[in-house]
Protein backbone atom coordinates (compact mmCIF):
# COMPACT_ATOMS: atom_id res chain seq x y z
CA UNK A 1 0.00 0.00 0.00
CA UNK A 2 2.72 2.46 0.96
CA UNK A 3 4.54 1.46 -2.20
CA UNK A 4 1.44 2.41 -4.19
CA UNK A 5 1.16 5.79 -2.43
CA UNK A 6 4.88 6.43 -2.96
CA UNK A 7 4.47 6.19 -6.75
CA UNK A 8 8.14 5.33 -7.24
CA UNK A 9 9.25 8.53 -5.50
CA UNK A 10 6.97 10.77 -7.53
CA UNK A 11 4.17 10.86 -4.93
CA UNK A 12 3.97 14.67 -4.70
CA UNK A 13 3.52 15.12 -8.45
CA UNK A 14 1.13 12.23 -9.06
CA UNK A 15 -1.14 12.91 -6.07
CA UNK A 16 -1.25 16.68 -6.62
CA UNK A 17 -2.45 15.95 -10.15
CA UNK A 18 -4.98 13.23 -9.21
CA UNK A 19 -6.10 15.16 -6.14
CA UNK A 20 -6.80 18.32 -8.11
CA UNK A 21 -8.92 16.40 -10.63
CA UNK A 22 -10.89 14.68 -7.88
CA UNK A 23 -11.47 18.01 -6.14
CA UNK A 24 -12.49 19.66 -9.40
CA UNK A 25 -15.13 17.00 -10.11
CA UNK A 26 -16.56 17.22 -6.58
CA UNK A 27 -16.73 21.02 -6.70
CA UNK A 28 -18.25 21.18 -10.16
CA UNK A 29 -20.95 18.61 -9.41
CA UNK A 30 -21.78 20.39 -6.13
CA UNK A 31 -21.90 23.75 -7.92
CA UNK A 32 -24.30 22.48 -10.62
CA UNK A 33 -26.51 20.93 -7.95
CA UNK A 34 -26.56 24.24 -6.03
CA UNK A 35 -27.40 26.14 -9.21
CA UNK A 36 -30.29 23.77 -9.99
CA UNK A 37 -31.62 24.03 -6.45
CA UNK A 38 -31.50 27.83 -6.55
CA UNK A 39 -33.21 27.90 -9.95
CA UNK A 40 -36.04 25.64 -8.79
CA UNK A 41 -36.43 27.50 -5.47
CA UNK A 42 -36.78 30.80 -7.33
CA UNK A 43 -39.25 29.18 -9.70
CA UNK A 44 -41.34 27.98 -6.77
CA UNK A 45 -41.24 31.42 -5.19
CA UNK A 46 -42.43 33.15 -8.33
CA UNK A 47 -45.03 30.51 -9.18
CA UNK A 48 -46.75 30.45 -5.78
CA UNK A 49 -49.79 32.80 -5.83
CA UNK A 50 -49.97 35.23 -2.82
CA UNK A 51 -52.95 33.61 -1.08
CA UNK A 52 -51.19 30.25 -0.96
CA UNK A 53 -47.98 31.74 0.45
CA UNK A 54 -47.07 31.91 4.12
CA UNK A 55 -48.79 35.27 4.43
CA UNK A 56 -52.06 33.75 3.36
CA UNK A 57 -51.70 30.76 5.67
CA UNK A 58 -51.53 33.00 8.74
CA UNK A 59 -54.69 34.79 7.59
CA UNK A 60 -52.78 38.01 6.87
CA UNK A 61 -53.90 39.77 3.68
Amino acid at each position, binding site marked *: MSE*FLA*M*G*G*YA*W*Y*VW*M*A*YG*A*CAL*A*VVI*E*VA*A*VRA*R*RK*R*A*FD*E*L*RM*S*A*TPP*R*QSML*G*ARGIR
Partner: protein
Amino acid sequence: MLINWYRFSSPVSFYPLAGSLSHATGVLAALLAGAGLFIALFVAPTDATQGDAYRIIYLHVPAAWMAMFIYLVMAGWSAFALGFNTRLSAMMGQALAPTGALMAALALWTGAFWGRPTWGTYWAWDARMTSTLILLFLYLGVIALRNAIEDPRRADRACALLTLVGAINVPIIYFSVQWWNTLHQGSSISLTAAPKMAMTMLAGILIMTAAAWCYTIAVSLSRVQAIIVERERGASWLESLIAVPEA
Protein backbone atom coordinates in the same frame (compact mmCIF):
# COMPACT_ATOMS: atom_id res chain seq x y z
CA MET B 1 -37.61 5.67 -37.99
CA LEU B 2 -36.96 9.32 -38.66
CA ILE B 3 -36.72 11.64 -35.69
CA ASN B 4 -37.78 15.22 -36.12
CA TRP B 5 -34.69 16.79 -34.58
CA TYR B 6 -36.07 20.29 -34.95
CA ARG B 7 -38.57 19.80 -32.17
CA PHE B 8 -35.64 19.58 -29.74
CA SER B 9 -34.69 23.15 -30.58
CA SER B 10 -37.47 24.31 -28.26
CA PRO B 11 -36.64 24.42 -24.55
CA VAL B 12 -39.81 22.57 -23.49
CA SER B 13 -39.05 19.57 -25.73
CA PHE B 14 -35.32 19.58 -25.04
CA TYR B 15 -35.61 19.75 -21.24
CA PRO B 16 -36.67 16.12 -20.58
CA LEU B 17 -34.18 14.82 -23.18
CA ALA B 18 -31.40 16.71 -21.41
CA GLY B 19 -32.46 15.10 -18.15
CA SER B 20 -32.39 11.51 -19.39
CA LEU B 21 -29.15 11.99 -21.32
CA SER B 22 -27.53 13.63 -18.32
CA HIS B 23 -28.39 10.72 -16.03
CA ALA B 24 -27.33 8.09 -18.57
CA THR B 25 -23.97 9.71 -19.37
CA GLY B 26 -23.38 10.38 -15.67
CA VAL B 27 -23.63 6.69 -14.87
CA LEU B 28 -21.48 5.85 -17.89
CA ALA B 29 -18.88 8.41 -16.81
CA ALA B 30 -18.62 6.83 -13.37
CA LEU B 31 -18.20 3.33 -14.81
CA LEU B 32 -15.63 4.42 -17.40
CA ALA B 33 -13.69 6.46 -14.86
CA GLY B 34 -13.63 3.50 -12.51
CA ALA B 35 -12.25 1.23 -15.21
CA GLY B 36 -9.86 3.88 -16.52
CA LEU B 37 -8.44 4.75 -13.10
CA PHE B 38 -7.99 1.08 -12.33
CA ILE B 39 -5.93 0.67 -15.48
CA ALA B 40 -4.08 3.95 -14.89
CA LEU B 41 -3.02 3.18 -11.33
CA PHE B 42 -2.86 -0.63 -11.11
CA VAL B 43 -2.71 -2.31 -14.51
CA ALA B 44 -0.57 -0.17 -16.78
CA PRO B 45 3.16 -0.87 -16.41
CA THR B 46 5.59 1.68 -15.03
CA ASP B 47 7.36 3.71 -17.66
CA ALA B 48 11.02 2.88 -18.31
CA THR B 49 12.19 6.52 -18.46
CA GLN B 50 9.68 8.47 -16.40
CA GLY B 51 8.80 5.97 -13.68
CA ASP B 52 5.37 6.36 -12.10
CA ALA B 53 5.29 10.11 -12.81
CA TYR B 54 4.01 9.28 -16.32
CA ARG B 55 0.67 8.14 -14.80
CA ILE B 56 -0.41 11.77 -14.91
CA ILE B 57 -0.89 11.16 -18.64
CA TYR B 58 -4.21 9.45 -17.88
CA LEU B 59 -5.57 12.76 -16.58
CA HIS B 60 -3.61 15.25 -18.63
CA VAL B 61 -4.46 13.94 -22.11
CA PRO B 62 -8.24 13.62 -21.48
CA ALA B 63 -8.36 17.07 -19.88
CA ALA B 64 -6.43 18.69 -22.71
CA TRP B 65 -8.51 17.01 -25.44
CA MET B 66 -11.74 17.96 -23.69
CA ALA B 67 -10.59 21.57 -23.27
CA MET B 68 -10.11 21.79 -27.03
CA PHE B 69 -13.18 19.76 -28.04
CA ILE B 70 -15.54 21.59 -25.71
CA TYR B 71 -14.41 24.89 -27.18
CA LEU B 72 -15.12 23.61 -30.70
CA VAL B 73 -18.56 22.39 -29.62
CA MET B 74 -19.20 25.79 -28.00
CA ALA B 75 -18.16 27.42 -31.26
CA GLY B 76 -20.61 25.17 -33.13
CA TRP B 77 -23.47 26.16 -30.82
CA SER B 78 -22.40 29.80 -31.16
CA ALA B 79 -22.58 29.57 -34.95
CA PHE B 80 -26.12 28.14 -34.64
CA ALA B 81 -27.06 30.84 -32.12
CA LEU B 82 -25.93 33.61 -34.46
CA GLY B 83 -27.16 31.95 -37.65
CA PHE B 84 -30.61 30.79 -36.50
CA ASN B 85 -31.08 33.16 -33.56
CA THR B 86 -32.13 30.24 -31.34
CA ARG B 87 -32.10 30.70 -27.54
CA LEU B 88 -31.33 27.06 -26.82
CA SER B 89 -28.15 27.04 -28.92
CA ALA B 90 -26.86 29.97 -26.90
CA MET B 91 -27.89 28.25 -23.67
CA MET B 92 -25.85 25.18 -24.65
CA GLY B 93 -22.81 27.41 -25.21
CA GLN B 94 -23.48 29.00 -21.82
CA ALA B 95 -23.71 25.57 -20.18
CA LEU B 96 -20.45 24.28 -21.66
CA ALA B 97 -18.18 27.21 -20.78
CA PRO B 98 -17.58 26.44 -17.07
CA THR B 99 -16.76 22.80 -17.76
CA GLY B 100 -14.45 23.77 -20.60
CA ALA B 101 -12.67 26.26 -18.36
CA LEU B 102 -12.22 23.58 -15.73
CA MET B 103 -10.76 21.13 -18.28
CA ALA B 104 -8.31 23.76 -19.53
CA ALA B 105 -7.25 24.58 -15.98
CA LEU B 106 -6.80 20.89 -15.15
CA ALA B 107 -4.81 20.35 -18.34
CA LEU B 108 -2.44 23.13 -17.28
CA TRP B 109 -2.25 21.95 -13.65
CA THR B 110 -1.67 18.27 -14.41
CA GLY B 111 0.75 19.25 -17.15
CA ALA B 112 2.73 21.38 -14.70
CA PHE B 113 3.03 18.55 -12.19
CA TRP B 114 4.08 16.18 -14.98
CA GLY B 115 6.56 18.67 -16.37
CA ARG B 116 8.41 19.33 -13.12
CA PRO B 117 9.86 15.83 -12.65
CA THR B 118 10.27 15.08 -16.37
CA TRP B 119 11.32 18.40 -17.95
CA GLY B 120 12.61 20.06 -14.80
CA THR B 121 10.05 22.89 -14.83
CA TYR B 122 6.42 23.47 -13.86
CA TRP B 123 6.01 25.96 -16.71
CA ALA B 124 7.58 27.24 -19.92
CA TRP B 125 6.33 29.77 -22.42
CA ASP B 126 6.35 27.27 -25.26
CA ALA B 127 3.73 27.36 -28.03
CA ARG B 128 1.37 24.69 -26.71
CA MET B 129 1.38 25.74 -23.06
CA THR B 130 0.96 29.42 -23.90
CA SER B 131 -1.89 28.81 -26.33
CA THR B 132 -3.62 26.53 -23.78
CA LEU B 133 -3.33 29.32 -21.21
CA ILE B 134 -4.94 31.61 -23.78
CA LEU B 135 -7.69 29.01 -24.19
CA LEU B 136 -8.34 29.19 -20.44
CA PHE B 137 -8.49 32.99 -20.65
CA LEU B 138 -10.96 32.74 -23.55
CA TYR B 139 -13.23 30.47 -21.51
CA LEU B 140 -13.06 32.80 -18.51
CA GLY B 141 -13.59 35.77 -20.82
CA VAL B 142 -16.78 34.26 -22.28
CA ILE B 143 -18.09 33.57 -18.77
CA ALA B 144 -17.19 37.09 -17.59
CA LEU B 145 -18.81 38.64 -20.67
CA ARG B 146 -21.99 36.68 -19.97
CA ASN B 147 -22.08 38.04 -16.39
CA ALA B 148 -21.32 41.58 -17.55
CA ILE B 149 -24.29 41.95 -19.93
CA GLU B 150 -27.74 42.40 -18.40
CA ASP B 151 -29.94 41.42 -21.31
CA PRO B 152 -29.68 37.66 -21.89
CA ARG B 153 -30.21 37.86 -25.67
CA ARG B 154 -27.54 40.54 -26.07
CA ALA B 155 -25.25 38.43 -23.91
CA ASP B 156 -25.99 35.45 -26.16
CA ARG B 157 -24.86 37.34 -29.26
CA ALA B 158 -21.76 38.85 -27.63
CA CYS B 159 -20.62 35.53 -26.16
CA ALA B 160 -21.27 33.72 -29.43
CA LEU B 161 -19.10 36.25 -31.28
CA LEU B 162 -16.28 36.04 -28.75
CA THR B 163 -16.41 32.24 -28.84
CA LEU B 164 -16.20 32.15 -32.64
CA VAL B 165 -13.35 34.66 -32.81
CA GLY B 166 -11.40 32.66 -30.24
CA ALA B 167 -11.90 29.37 -32.08
CA ILE B 168 -8.77 29.97 -34.20
CA ASN B 169 -6.79 29.19 -31.01
CA VAL B 170 -7.79 25.51 -31.04
CA PRO B 171 -5.98 24.51 -34.25
CA ILE B 172 -3.05 26.60 -33.03
CA ILE B 173 -2.86 24.50 -29.86
CA TYR B 174 -3.27 21.28 -31.82
CA PHE B 175 -0.66 21.97 -34.51
CA SER B 176 1.75 23.95 -32.31
CA VAL B 177 3.98 20.93 -31.75
CA GLN B 178 4.37 20.54 -35.52
CA TRP B 179 4.69 24.22 -36.44
CA TRP B 180 7.14 25.34 -33.75
CA ASN B 181 10.15 24.07 -31.87
CA THR B 182 8.46 23.34 -28.56
CA LEU B 183 9.30 21.77 -25.20
CA HIS B 184 6.11 19.76 -25.61
CA GLN B 185 6.48 16.45 -27.41
CA GLY B 186 4.78 15.60 -30.69
CA SER B 187 1.57 13.60 -30.71
CA SER B 188 1.85 9.94 -29.62
CA ILE B 189 -1.54 8.99 -30.97
CA SER B 190 -2.45 9.37 -34.63
CA LEU B 191 -5.46 8.35 -36.69
CA THR B 192 -3.25 6.98 -39.45
CA ALA B 193 -0.17 5.42 -37.87
CA ALA B 194 0.30 2.74 -35.21
CA PRO B 195 0.53 4.13 -31.69
CA LYS B 196 4.00 4.50 -30.21
CA MET B 197 2.97 3.25 -26.77
CA ALA B 198 2.02 0.04 -24.98
CA MET B 199 -1.54 -1.16 -25.62
CA THR B 200 -2.58 -1.02 -21.95
CA MET B 201 -1.44 2.59 -21.79
CA LEU B 202 -3.40 3.45 -24.93
CA ALA B 203 -6.48 1.65 -23.59
CA GLY B 204 -6.22 3.56 -20.32
CA ILE B 205 -5.96 6.90 -22.10
CA LEU B 206 -8.90 6.15 -24.42
CA ILE B 207 -11.12 4.95 -21.57
CA MET B 208 -10.30 8.01 -19.45
CA THR B 209 -11.02 10.24 -22.47
CA ALA B 210 -14.39 8.54 -22.96
CA ALA B 211 -15.05 9.05 -19.24
CA ALA B 212 -14.20 12.75 -19.58
CA TRP B 213 -16.55 13.04 -22.56
CA CYS B 214 -19.45 11.42 -20.70
CA TYR B 215 -18.76 13.51 -17.60
CA THR B 216 -18.77 16.70 -19.68
CA ILE B 217 -22.06 15.80 -21.36
CA ALA B 218 -23.66 14.84 -18.03
CA VAL B 219 -22.59 18.03 -16.25
CA SER B 220 -23.35 20.46 -19.07
CA LEU B 221 -26.80 18.97 -19.76
CA SER B 222 -27.62 19.22 -16.07
CA ARG B 223 -26.39 22.80 -16.09
CA VAL B 224 -28.43 23.67 -19.19
CA GLN B 225 -31.55 22.45 -17.39
CA ALA B 226 -30.82 24.96 -14.61
CA ILE B 227 -30.20 27.65 -17.24
CA ILE B 228 -33.50 26.85 -18.97
CA VAL B 229 -35.35 27.17 -15.67
CA GLU B 230 -33.56 30.46 -14.94
CA ARG B 231 -34.16 32.00 -18.35
CA GLU B 232 -37.61 30.69 -19.27
CA ARG B 233 -39.20 32.28 -16.19
CA GLY B 234 -42.80 33.04 -17.04
CA ALA B 235 -43.31 30.13 -19.40
CA SER B 236 -46.26 28.08 -18.17
CA TRP B 237 -44.71 24.67 -18.98
CA LEU B 238 -42.22 25.24 -16.15
CA GLU B 239 -45.02 24.95 -13.62
CA SER B 240 -45.36 21.26 -14.38
CA LEU B 241 -41.79 20.79 -13.10
CA ILE B 242 -42.62 21.88 -9.61
CA ALA B 243 -45.35 20.66 -7.30
CA VAL B 244 -47.39 23.70 -6.29
CA PRO B 245 -49.09 22.76 -3.01
CA GLU B 246 -52.78 23.51 -2.65
CA ALA B 247 -53.58 25.77 0.32
